[in-house]
């Protein structure tokens, strides 16, 4: 269904403000933030984000009241070059407003959460000056993300796409001079760089897709592209396949799919709100949004759809296995995010766009909840550690305390009860336990996979779901149950309200989120139907049963291993012995990073060093230009001099040349040595030569 171009009543004209508000917020904070109190800075940013949320609600309302008719809101011209006509135009329809609501809604909550979290974080890391910077970046992120979801063309989307990449870079590298443990290090900035560059690889794919699109479909504007696509698909489906697959490269970069997912785990170096907002709830789902948005293209080429679905499924399973072997509380969640993104990508790949979007939304809720709760745990642990340091009765042997390491935790349900319950809700939602939000959305994906005949995908996802339940269970047991394995865990303190209240909101959403698209009601389906061609999925009781059983089995197995016999301090993971090498693989992320380094990164560094030092400098600059060109030049000029005067040079020259030249130059030297008679000889030589030429000609 195409957008109505006829202006309707409503609040559509407000669309640009979803971007303007955060921009105003960040500008204000940049310019006058220095004079505001810490709270002031935080609330200003949160207010900006909230204003954006309000506008999103108004826009959604407008779409709602307009029976789903969206509108393009033209702001200004951007690039008009020949056939290229790009404008800053905002697209308000059911799909984009969904994303806006998620982004600004979750975003606002996380802003508020960050007021508290960052207050403590900057103090722990001993650099309060960064507080303001954080909120500036956060607002910038909201602005970029809003551009991404509201752009009316692929290129405007791309602006947001790269913009969020930049914010991701800035926020991952927020503690750019320290590592996650607060030690002076390059680690965090390396992680940030890695994220940006990996994303750029994806963006390369996006760009190529864009070029193909423009020159074959004639536009970047969504409607125009979709309008032109069927005709092209009929004649040259290969081009549509190429477009969609190159786009998939972009998706893989942004949504952390195989093979470009490697940046996401490292991105956990950023402060926890960032992990929750950017690297779980919003930015990483941009790829899913992109494919959903491009549904008219993907549906034209089943081959591409299959590739997308397989990519998602493989990623989902692969990441889930890695999550099993992690100790860092955030890393587990990070791999879980990759895995869940795999679910979504698989869903949209299969054409189950609603399922994908549904999972996107619910995932945003519960994964944000989980991350923030994890943040709360970390803060609690840090508080505990801090407390120890202040009261002097701790065993500080100079060892570095890692508040993210689950091996340092244990039994925290007593010290941090609120967080524990919130975490539990998140876990259940993620594991897909009825009736939490995750259950419904995940189930819809599985059901669609089953029904659409993607059997392989279905089974892979199901296994991944099992693993999900298992590693979440493992996490719960390791963190909250058993005994504290570190003094800090024992002394952990519950987080303040400012942190827990947003969590509660998210927890509520995680519980109720499933209501968005309950089987039979299809609220979300109906809503999105205004924008993309979708069909309501049917609820398959068999699928639901299998997945629930798998999830429960996962939790149960985790209890068997981790719950029944809680881990002791210093004890290795109980899975390590039975699984052996397999577990080592999981623990070490299947050595993918190392592989990439060995195959690509180091090679690139070598290549560029080689080009720079050997080819460009030693060969081209020094050897060719200095020796060959300049050398020849000097050599030639020296012949001139040497034949006249410098005997040394003559000898050198003569040694290097043949006997004939040697004799010739030697005799020339005798002739031309400052003697007047030699000069006369030269004149006579000229005469003889000229006359000879004229006579014999």
């Amino acid at each position, binding site marked *: 269904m195409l957008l109505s171009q006829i202006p309707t009543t409503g609040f559509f004209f407000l669309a640009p403000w979803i971007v303007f508000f955060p921009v105003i917020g960040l500008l204000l904070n940049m310019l006058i933030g220095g004079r505001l109190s810490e709270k002031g800075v935080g609330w200003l940013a949160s207010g900006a984000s909230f204003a954006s949320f309000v506008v999103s609600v108004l826009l959604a309302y407008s779409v709602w009241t307009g029976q789903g008719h969206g509108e393009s809101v033209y702001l200004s011209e951007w690039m008009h070059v020949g056939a290229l006509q790009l404008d800053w135009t905002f697209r308000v329809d059911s799909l984009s407003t969904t994303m806006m609501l998620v982004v600004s809604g979750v975003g606002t909550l996380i802003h508020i959460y960050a007021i508290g979290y960052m207050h403590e974080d900057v103090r722990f890391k001993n650099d309060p000056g960064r507080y303001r910077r954080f909120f500036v970046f956060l607002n910038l992120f909201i602005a970029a993300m809003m551009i991404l979801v509201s752009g009316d063309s692929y290129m405007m989307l791309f602006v947001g796409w790269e913009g969020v990449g930049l914010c991701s870079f800035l926020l991952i590298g927020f503690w750019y001079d320290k590592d996650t443990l607060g030690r002076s290090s390059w680690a965090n900035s390396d992680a940030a760089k890695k994220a940006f560059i990996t994303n750029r690889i994806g963006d390369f794919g996006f760009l190529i897709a864009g070029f193909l699109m423009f020159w074959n479909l004639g536009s970047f504007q969504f409607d125009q592209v979709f309008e032109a696509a069927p005709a092209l698909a009929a004649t040259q489906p290969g081009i549509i396949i190429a477009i969609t697959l190159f786009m998939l490269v972009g998706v893989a970069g942004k949504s952390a799919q195989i093979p470009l997912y490697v940046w996401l785990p490292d991105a956990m170096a950023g402060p926890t709100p960032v992990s929750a907002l950017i690297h779980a709830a919003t930015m990483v789902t941009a790829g899913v949004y992109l494919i959903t948005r491009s549904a008219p293209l993907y549906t034209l080429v089943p081959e591409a759809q299959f590739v997308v679905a397989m990519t998602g499924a493989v990623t989902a399973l692969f990441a889930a296995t890695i999550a099993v072997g992690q100790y860092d509380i955030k890393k587990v969640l990070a791999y879980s995010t990759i895995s869940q993104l795999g679910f979504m990508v698989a869903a949209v790949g299969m054409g189950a766009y609603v399922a994908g979007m549904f999972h996107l939304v619910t995932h945003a809720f519960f994964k944000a909840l989980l991350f923030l709760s994890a943040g709360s745990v970390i803060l609690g642990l840090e508080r505990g550690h801090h407390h120890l340091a202040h009261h002097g009765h701790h065993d500080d042997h100079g060892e570095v305390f890692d508040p993210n390491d689950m091996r340092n935790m244990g039994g925290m349900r007593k010290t941090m009860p609120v967080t524990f319950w919130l975490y539990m809700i998140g876990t259940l939602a993620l594991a897909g336990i009825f009736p939490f939000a995750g259950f419904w959305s995940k189930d819809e994906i599985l059901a669609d996979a089953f029904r659409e005949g993607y059997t392989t995908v279905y089974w892979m996802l199901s296994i991944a779901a099992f693993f999900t339940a298992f590693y979440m269970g493992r996490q719960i047991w390791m963190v909250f149950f058993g005994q504290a394995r570190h003094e800090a865990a024992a002394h952990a303190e519950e987080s303040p309200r400012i942190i827990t209240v947003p969590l509660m909101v998210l927890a509520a959403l995680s519980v109720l989120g499933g209501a968005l698209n309950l089987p039979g009601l299809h609220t979300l389906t109906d809503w999105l139907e205004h924008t993309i061609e979708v069909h309501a999925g049917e609820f398959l009781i068999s699928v639901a049963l299998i997945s629930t059983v798998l999830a429960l089995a996962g939790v149960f197995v985790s209890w068997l291993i981790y719950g029944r016999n809680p881990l002791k301090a210093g004890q290795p993971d109980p899975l390590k012995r039975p699984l052996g090498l397999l577990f080592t693989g999981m623990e070490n992320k299947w050595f993918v990073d190392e592989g990439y380094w060995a195959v690509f990164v180091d090679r690139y560094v070598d290549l560029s060093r080689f080009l720079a030092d050997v080819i460009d400098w030693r060969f081209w600059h020094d050897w060719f230009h200095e020796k060959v060109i300049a050398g020849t030049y000097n050599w030639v000029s020296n012949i001139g001099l040497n034949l*006249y005067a410098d005997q040394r040079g003559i000898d050198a020259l003569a040694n290097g040349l043949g006997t004939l030249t040697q004799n010739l130059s030697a005799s020339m030297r005798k002739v031309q040595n*400052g*003697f007047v*008679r030699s000069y*006369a000889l030269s004149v006579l030589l000229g005469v003889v030569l000229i006359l000879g030429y004229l006579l014999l000609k």
Partner: protein
Amino acid sequence: MVPQTYYIALSAVLFTLGALGVLVRRNALIIFMSVELMLNAANLAFVAFANTYQHLNGQIIVFFVIAVAAAEVAVGLALIVAIFKTRQSIDVDTMSSLKG
């Protein structure tokens, strides 16, 4: 009858000998004499041609050449004398400090 060519050939030979003198002798005075020989050879050619064409032009030119040669000699000898005063030598090979 002597062909005109013979005279020209003779003048060429004399000219070449004069040039050779410039090239092989080190004595500035003899070099100078060799130059005079060259001029002399040219004069011979002039007169020979003048004879062929039965012109006076050739002869008149020779007259001028002789006069100019005298002028050259005046300057040249003065120069040689001046140099001899400074260096006590008229070997041109010793005058090779300027080179390169």
